[in-house]
């Protein structure tokens, strides 16, 4: 009975929706400006609402960069949202052209971009959280139980300290804990900021992930030198093989040193970018097919599903980056074990 009634209502409503659909799009003409997910609600937003036309060329640049123009491809819009930008758009309320910095240290352009803003925002959030937790922790003795935010942060710090740092690095892990904890929270907050409306994913930019991976690389190399000395480090490069194989092994080992941070860079960047591209693509299916039904049945549910998945991936990738950093540091500093291996291999050779 109920199924029949539902199907009847659907039979009535579906053609109505379809006709509404076509009317709505007809009213807009051939304008494809609605390709923006938020612009769908506010189709007639004109460049008049541009908030800060900072420089003379700004409106035109902003309009072009922002993608309010006509005849735009969905791919372009997606890329526009994924990529870094000198204009921070708050559609449909307007946009802010981020300030250019004239000073060029080392000849590089250090102008503020969208992702720089997000990095700063993440740093600020992390500083506020960290300092408040630090203050609340300082004020209590070991017999009190932690409360609220301090409890959450403390659990994560303890997890990274024992399960990530201690189990992967082993003895002497203590001095790497601050870096690992900071990198974890930094990536986590960047990932999460990319998931809130008007946010951008700084960790979806390869420059950011590269910088973080370079930190891991530098720390790994310094730790390896400190733990093994120059001789041990060079021995490590030969991987304990016979000298006649060194011509093959040494380049491979050197390349191996660089593939680790490269893998970290690409993994985080690709994961964060891919998730966002999927969400945008799912939403654009509705605009490409110009149908509310597709929007309700496909785009929104699937986008929500991917969004929840992204929420999980935000934590997962922050953890993976931290975990692998700890693993690489552990591999670089685990010298006793390797020395034994080398000695055994030498004994076998002679």
């Amino acid at each position, binding site marked *: 009975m109920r199924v029949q009634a539902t199907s009847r209502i659907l039979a009535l409503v579906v053609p109505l929706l379809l006709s509404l659909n076509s009317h709505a799009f007809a009213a807009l003409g051939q304008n494809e400006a609605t390709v923006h997910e938020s612009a769908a609600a506010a189709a007639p937003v004109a460049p008049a609402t541009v908030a800060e036309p900072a420089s003379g060329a700004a409106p035109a640049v902003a309009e072009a960069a922002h993608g309010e123009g006509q005849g735009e491809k969905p791919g372009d819009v997606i890329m526009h949202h994924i990529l870094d930008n000198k204009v921070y758009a708050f559609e449909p309320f307007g946009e802010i052209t981020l300030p250019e910095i004239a000073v060029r240290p080392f000849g590089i352009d250090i102008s503020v971009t969208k992702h720089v803003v997000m990095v700063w925002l993440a740093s600020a959030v992390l500083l506020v959280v960290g300092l408040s937790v630090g203050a609340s922790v300082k004020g209590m003795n070991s017999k009190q139980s932690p409360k609220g935010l301090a409890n959450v942060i403390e659990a994560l710090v303890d997890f990274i300290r024992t399960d990530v740092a201690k189990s992967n690095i082993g003895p002497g892990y203590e001095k790497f804990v601050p870096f690992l904890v900071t990198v974890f929270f930094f990536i986590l907050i960047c990932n999460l900021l990319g998931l809130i409306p008007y946010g951008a994913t700084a960790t979806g930019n390869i420059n950011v992930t590269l910088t973080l991976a*370079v930190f891991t690389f530098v720390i790994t190399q310094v730790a390896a030198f400190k733990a093994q000395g120059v001789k041990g480090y060079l021995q490590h490069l030969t991987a304990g093989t016979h000298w006649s194989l060194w011509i093959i092994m040494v380049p491979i080992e050197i390349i191996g040193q660089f593939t680790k941070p490269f893998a970290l860079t690409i993994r985080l960047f690709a994961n964060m970018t891919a998730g966002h591209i999927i969400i945008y693509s799912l939403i654009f299916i509705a605009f490409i097919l110009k149908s509310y039904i597709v929007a309700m049945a496909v785009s929104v549910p699937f986008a929500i599903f991917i969004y929840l998945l992204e929420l999980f991936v935000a934590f997962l990738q922050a953890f993976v980056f931290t975990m692998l950093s700890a693993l690489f540091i552990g591999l670089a500093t685990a010298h006793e074990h390797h020395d034994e291996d080398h000695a055994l291999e030498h004994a076998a050779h002679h």
Partner: protein
Amino acid sequence: MLTSGIILLEGGLLNPNPGLIFWTAISFLIVLLILKKFAWGPVVSMLEEREKGIQSAIDRAHSAKDEAEAILKKNRELLARADAEADRIIREGKEYADKVRTELTEKAQAESQKMIASAKDEIEQEKRRALDVLRNEVADLAIRGAEKIIRTALDAEKQKVVVDDMIKELAASRN
């Protein structure tokens, strides 16, 4: 207007942006240094302190348990020893009582035996003495009778009278 060509040229996914690298590095370093001093340091030291506290609490609980078990064991031993002691005392008391009883009985029996024996001896002696007395008296009587018989001489009738007198005399003296 943004076309794919411009995207590839200007802002590809792999487009290097030194400014962003610069700012990321600076921001991350500042955050790292500040939080290392003011957040992670206190948190980690507090965690270590708590770990130590928990460990010491566990150790203390274990030692207390061991102590309690030792005390319980000692108590059981003491109880068992006290039980054994009590058993021993009771057994010894019983044994002593038995011994005393048997000793007393034996002594009493021996005493009574001795008394009976001495009584028998006395009776025997008295009997023998009485017989001796009787034998002496009979001998005296016989001698006296014979004397009288001899004195009255030859007369049978007289003899008979004498004997009768003597018997009468005896009977009279007996009574």
